[in-house]
């Protein structure tokens, strides 16, 4: 087992070079070439027809919505949309591929040359990752092998066969497993925001393969120049979460480093390897050698006519795209005067939560205060409870009511939090909770009386403050809270200091 990679404190003696290949299922009601439903989780072989079963005489017809969503994804990734595109047959034999070929795109993908940037909100990295191409193809079915049954049979369910997929291929621009994970999060957020895909990895609507190798700088030796050695590229499959992608890449980089030290084998001297990620074991294992690209014997799909896209159609697609997360982060930060970090946290929760926040911020009139409440109270509670913001039992109006009372000095923020928790737990109106908790603004006379009582009981603190140690007054606030939970800490402190000055 390879050792863990070096930490940031001791730089690695190599650069990890990563490119990703992502398949996302498009949010259509029907398959790419027939009217069968794409609903997930139905009994096997209940969403199949002669076309997606590959029966003789059936013909595919392209789903307009699938093509439009694919174009939207490509535009969001800043790709160039080609005015003329066609489909090709990718021939390979596998029981979950009933036609014996996959309808995909080979030499004329509908889009290419894009990019997507990922910026770590804490400033650890910022990476603009090139997109080589985005193309539209059909999914295969599912094969299941029940080893326990001992029958030696595999069972084939073709419900998924023909489901529209967008394949997104990145340049090898990522430089660490952490960057790869962050970039995938950004890609997923973008595609979900734009309604292209639900990107649900559990249901297989987003799948990731990763290509990784190491670039190792070698010093000049034996009269030769210094150069960079590259380890053979390995493609990793079977990663079922973004966390697995990060773990698999971390493992694989360490494994390649160890192998390099032992063998000095460089890229181009052996065929490209495919390895599968074994999540429970935390290792990658060799898989069958991938068929060479020419073995797929691509040729133009005769059953589909080409598709042309005009500038006007591209402009219309761009117009209908909606605001992507990057633009929304900048807009939120500017409009509500919140930090880039705060905007990032809110936007990463999805469009519904951003709307909820904007509603709250509008009612409160202060974006920063609203953002603090969102993050410290609403989001934390939401994460604990699970569910979406739409199902959250406390409304933006109620939170705004609590914040408004804090702003008017009825009680302080920590008391406000208790009220929030009680509104959440009881489902009662804010005013009722305030009344039932016996919360009332403390009058100035009461506050002065309370402070006098505290000063009389704490001569040491009084002496310290008189001696110039104002911070000693902090010791009085906790005591004040015990005597009257509604006492505002700031006011207690100021009143005490004023009283001591006059003593």
């Amino acid at each position, binding site marked *: 087992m390879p050792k863990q990679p070096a930490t940031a404190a001791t730089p690695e003696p190599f650069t990890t070079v990563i490119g990703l290949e992502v*398949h996302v299922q498009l949010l259509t009601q029907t398959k790419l070439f027939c009217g*069968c439903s794409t609903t997930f989780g139905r009994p096997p072989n209940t969403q*199949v027809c002669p076309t997606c079963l590959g029966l003789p005489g059936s013909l595919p017809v392209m789903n307009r919505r699938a093509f439009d969503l694919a174009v939207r994804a490509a535009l969001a990734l800043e790709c160039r949309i080609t005015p003329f595109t066609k489909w090709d047959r990718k021939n390979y034999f596998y029981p979950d591929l009933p036609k014996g070929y996959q309808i995909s795109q080979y030499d004329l993908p509908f889009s290419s040359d894009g990019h997507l940037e990922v910026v770590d909100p804490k400033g650890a990295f910022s990476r603009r990752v090139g997109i080589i191409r985005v193309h539209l193809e059909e999914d295969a079915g599912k*094969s299941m092998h029940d080893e326990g049954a001992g029958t030696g049979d595999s069972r084939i*369910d073709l419900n998924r066969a023909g489901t529209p997929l967008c394949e997104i291929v990145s340049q090898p621009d990522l430089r660490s497993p952490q960057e790869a994970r962050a970039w995938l999060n950004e890609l997923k957020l973008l595609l979900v925001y734009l309604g292209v895909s639900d990107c649900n990895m559990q249901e297989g609507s987003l799948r990731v393969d990763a290509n990784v190798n190491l670039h190792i700088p070698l010093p000049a030796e034996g009269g030769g120049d210094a150069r960079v050695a590259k380890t053979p590229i390995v493609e990793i499959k079977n990663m079922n979460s973004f966390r697995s992608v990060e773990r698999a890449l971390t493992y694989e980089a360490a494994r390649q480093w160890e192998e390099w030290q032992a063998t000095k084998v460089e890229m181009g001297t052996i065929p490209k390897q495919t390895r*599968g990620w074994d999540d429970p074991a935390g290792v990658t294992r060799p898989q069958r050698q991938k068929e060479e690209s020419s073995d797929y014997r691509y040729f133009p799909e005769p059953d589909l006519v080409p598709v042309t896209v005009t500038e006007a159609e591209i402009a219309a697609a761009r117009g209908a795209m909606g605001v992507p997360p990057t633009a929304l982060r900048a807009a939120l930060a500017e409009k509500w005067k919140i930090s880039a970090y705060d905007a990032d946290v809110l936007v990463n929760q999805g469009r519904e939560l951003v709307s909820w926040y904007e509603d709250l911020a509008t009612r409160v009139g202060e974006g920063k205060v609203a953002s603090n409440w969102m993050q410290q109270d609403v989001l934390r509670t939401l994460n604990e409870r699970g569910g979406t913001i739409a199902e959250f039992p406390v409304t933006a109006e109620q939170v705004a009511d609590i914040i408004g009372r804090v702003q008017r000095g009825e009680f302080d923020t920590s008391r406000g939090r208790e009220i929030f928790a009680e509104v959440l737990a009881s489902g009662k109106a804010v005013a009722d909770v305030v009344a039932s908790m016996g919360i009332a603004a403390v009058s100035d006379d009461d506050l002065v009386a309370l402070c006098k009582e505290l000063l009389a009981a704490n001569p040491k603190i009084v002496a310290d403050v008189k001696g110039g140690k104002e911070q000693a007054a902090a010791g009085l606030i906790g005591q004040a809270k015990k005597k009257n939970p509604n006492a505002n800490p700031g006011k207690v402190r100021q009143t005490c200091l004023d009283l001591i000055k006059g003593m």
Partner: protein
Amino acid sequence: MALSRQDVAKVGLLARLALSDADLDRMTGELSKIVGFVSQLEELDTAQAAPLAHPLDTQNVFRADEPKPSLTTEQALQSTPRHDGSCFLVPAVLGESGAA
């Protein structure tokens, strides 16, 4: 252009066809004739001809994203040699599935 026995054996493997020696002999001859027939096209000068993506002069054939009834599972499975009432049964395949 002649195809070698190895070429034919490789194509046979990719299609998961078990070709006997006799099959290979016959196929190598027949496939070579087919490829030879098509290679007559090489006599033409196509330097100035644009690649043709499709013989029909038609483009942009789409359908709306509207569900249509599927077959019943019984109908879907009726022509397969082996099934278990819900799935097609095939000789064991191990390893990953899904689009490559």
